[in-house]
């Protein structure tokens, strides 16, 4: 382990680390534009120049490997003067159009100017190099060449991460600009990432731009609900509305990236009307709103009645691979309490596709965030055989009642409508059905009871991704109407059935789950934060 001195402080570096990396590990940020921890090093911006003893010139901290005994200074006058100079260079041809720039508030030019610059511009407006503005680069990205600092992060992203190479430099000298060949659209399922890694306002998000100034946004740490990869994300929201989804760096899962489908998946939540009150079908066959207490009492007594008449094996628990571990745990606990034995969650054949990734980067074939959680909690059985098996069993009269949780996938794919159709078929075949869902749909009329529940981002809970990594997703926004988190519905049902129901939060449920389910035993909620914990 090489040790070196950084600004008078002895610091240890990992072998092969450059100065900027070792400094970052010790919480010291050396200013930079082109360096990015998840991209190959380029060394072009020259913002990270530092003084290394025995080196005549200042050297970039991003390209210089730490040597044992090295003495590095990043904060003395010589370095500050150099950094100030580089910053001044970056700003001479910059349009300084912060008032109309979407990056304002999270712009590295602004940030570093406040620390190193604070100089007056010495270049008259007419002398600035003019470049092209507002270039549409496909569905996700808008390019402003004038704001670009030419750090090449976007170019390197497409070259080394997606290996598709859409972007490149064009021209020479101070007329260099980034772009795609003949302005071709960025038709790439990961194109949104270049907006995140762009340190300035050159690449802005077509989806998010001009929607909200970033300083008005609140951030909630979460996990993407778009597929089984479970990318670690941050939800930026305000007043109950989600404005954007950004990747949080997690080297174990998604590094700094997020796919475009996942990035836009939150829009699905505002697509369609929400169910706001529990609905119970009366004798007239029409669903009518009731209170939660009435709903819980009626469900519990009706299920017990069916159990007593037809046996516990006639009750089906059909879970959703989009629900949290906590939801699925209490779902199973309640139905176990009734003596139910028939469980499944497979709307089509997720189990077969679990190992089948859609690409080698992030996107997983299984568009549900918690299929693995459902499996680990014992909600998959060959006896039931997925939803088709359940439909057949109901048709044959072996299954009489069912408690079904269904969430529309946040990332659409062909076959979603068919899957939904199978849920309807199941409800139709069952004599008594309880449906927990978030959004309204015509086919829900078939259910005996419809319970409005919180969707992704509206409740705290953990998800288990395809490799068994359990990660915590926070609650970003309030649920609409009287809807409740799924775990709370089952806590209520457990209470109604006379069982113990001591949980006040998802965290409490998690603790009970860790105590009682061997797969989760011994893990704490803290471990499910970055980078998450893999369970057996």
């Amino acid at each position, binding site marked *: 382990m090489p040790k070196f001195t950084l600004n008078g402080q002895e610091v240890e570096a990992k072998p092969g680390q450059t100065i900027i990396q070792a400094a970052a590990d010790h919480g010291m940020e050396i200013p930079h534009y082109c360096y990015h921890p998840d991209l190959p090093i380029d*060394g*072009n*911006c*020259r*913002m990270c*120049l530092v003084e290394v003893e025995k080196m005549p*010139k*200042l050297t*970039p901290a991003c*390209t210089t490997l730490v040597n044992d005994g090295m003495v590095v200074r990043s904060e003395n006058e010589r370095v500050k003067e*150099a950094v100030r*100079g*580089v910053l*001044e*260079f*970056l700003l*001479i*041809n910059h349009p300084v159009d912060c008032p109309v720039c979407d990056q304002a508030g999270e712009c590295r030019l602004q940030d570093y100017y406040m620390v190193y610059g604070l100089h007056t511009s*010495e*270049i008259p407006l007419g*002398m600035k*190099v003019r470049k092209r503005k507002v270039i549409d680069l496909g569905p996700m990205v808008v390019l402003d060449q004038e704001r670009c*600092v*030419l750090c090449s992060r976007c170019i390197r992203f497409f070259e080394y991460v997606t290996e598709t190479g859409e972007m*490149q*430099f064009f*021209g*020479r*000298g*101070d*007329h*260099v600009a980034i772009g795609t060949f003949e302005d071709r659209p960025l038709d790439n399922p990961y194109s949104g990432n270049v907006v995140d890694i762009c340190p300035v306002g050159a690449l802005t998000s077509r989806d998010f731009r001009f929607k909200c100034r970033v300083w008005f946004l609140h951030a909630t740490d979460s996990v993407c609900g778009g597929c089984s990869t479970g990318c670690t994300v941050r939800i930026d929201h305000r007043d109950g509305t989600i404005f954007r989804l950004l990747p949080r760096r997690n080297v174990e899962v998604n590094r700094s990236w997020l796919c475009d489908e996942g990035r836009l998946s939150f829009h699905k939540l505002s697509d369609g009307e929400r169910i706001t009150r529990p609905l119970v079908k009366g004798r007239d066959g029409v669903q009518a709103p009731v209170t939660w207490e009435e709903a819980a009492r009626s469900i519990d007594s009706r299920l017990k009645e069916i159990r007593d008449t037809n046996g516990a094996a006639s009750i089906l628990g059909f879970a959703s691979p989009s629900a949290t571990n906590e939801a699925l745990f209490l779902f199973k606990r309640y139905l176990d309490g009734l003596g139910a034995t028939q469980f499944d969650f497979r709307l089509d054949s997720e189990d077969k596709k679990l190992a089948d990734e859609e690409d080698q980067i992030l996107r997983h074939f299984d568009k549900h965030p918690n299929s693995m959680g459902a499996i680990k909690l014992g909600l998959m059985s060959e006896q039931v055989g997925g939803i088709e098996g359940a439909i057949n069993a109901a048709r044959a009269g072996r299954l009489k009642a069912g408690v079904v949780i269904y969430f529309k996938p946040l990332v659409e794919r062909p076959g979603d409508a068919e899957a939904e159709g199978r849920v309807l078929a199941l409800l139709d075949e069952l004599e008594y059905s309880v449906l927990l869902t978030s959004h309204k749909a015509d086919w829900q009329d078939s259910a005996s009871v419809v319970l409005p529940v919180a969707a992704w981002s509206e409740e705290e809970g953990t998800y288990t991704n395809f490799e068994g990594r359990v990660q915590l997703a926070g609650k970003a926004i309030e649920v609409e109407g009287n809807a409740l988190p799924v775990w709370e519905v089952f806590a209520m049902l457990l209470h109604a059935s006379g069982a113990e129901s001591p949980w006040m939060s998802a965290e409490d449920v998690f603790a009970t789950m860790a105590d009682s389910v061997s797969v989760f035993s011994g893990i704490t909620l803290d471990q499910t934060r970055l980078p998450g914990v893999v369970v057996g």
Partner: protein
Amino acid sequence: MTRILLANIDKPEQASIVKYRERGGYKALEKALAMDQAAVIEEVKASGLRGRGGAGFPTGMKWSFVPRNTGKPTYLLCNADESEPGTFKDRILMERDPHMMIEGMAIASYALNCHLAYIYIRGEYEFVANMVQKALDEAYEAKMLGPSVMGKDFALDIFVHLGQGAYICGEETSLIESLEGDRGYPRIKPPFPATHGFLASPTVVNNVETLCALPWIIQNGAAAYAAIGTEKSKGTKLFSVSGHVSKPGVYEVDLGYPLVDFINNEAGGVPNGRKLKAVIPGGSSVPVMTAAECPGVLLDYESLLKAGSMLGSGGMIVLDETTSMPETLSVIADFYAHESCGQCTPCREGTGWAAKILKNIVAGKGKRSDVDLLLKIADMMEGKTICPLADADVMPIRSFVTKFRSEFEALCGDN
């Protein structure tokens, strides 16, 4: 004075392999092939030959940095991307005596155990490239190149690669990038080309003139070469002289030849009875010298450095008293702004900014503060970039502005 490089330059049909061999050509290669590879390197080290492209790094030492037995091939790249304003020495060697370069490359390749070499010729020299290709074809036919060089167990192929007109591709790592088919961007060093060069393999990049000196050194011995020149600057050097002299052209002189004598005797002096004002001794990127600074200065690496300038590529530009220094600097600054590759910030933004300020000054729209701003920009660029292009702009800016400040200020007037 010894004539090594230009010895046969004016002889008829020297470019043909027949005449070249009649005049003793390829004898040195034959001699080298009979020597140990390491002995050839030692010979070149002992000769004191230094890179003639501009940096003046000892050639033998550069070769000795190349690791052996890496499992990767070693490449020799001949840098014929002669682009420094004022420099036109390599061109004459390639046009008039191309086999000397080919022989030099073959000797270097043998010493380095290299079997594939490239000649990277600047895009504007397409006609030169055609001549070189013709010479290569002859050399292949005469079995000086190919699977068995001169019948020996040594294979060598040489290819010509024509650049696309970028000054930066004369910088060795950009040259390598360009040769690999990428944008001509300088690489961050380390790693150096000696270990990670062309196709991530050990690579030597040598200038045309450097390679052309090799046949003579092998043929006449290192001691004979080292006997020419000064203590640290050995051998002869080509100077391409342009500007206000009676006889502009390419001259070969022993290193250590007095600068003033060179201008007056070799280049024919400043014409029309005008007085010498300034000299740029080694290509537009080196600091300018005032006439007063010239006496006593010798044309060698050390003396010119001591005088505050550099030998550079030997592209000498002589300026007489009628020259406007701001205009001259503006032309030079325009060149570097145009040729900056744009990869790293200080050079990309600084060269362009400086060029614009100078244009303003020359147009009479400058402010007095602009003169200091030029010096500030020079400070902001110097030593902060990936390659030396920014420094190549800094040196003329700083020397012109400090040595001829009143001329700049006079143009700025009262603005």
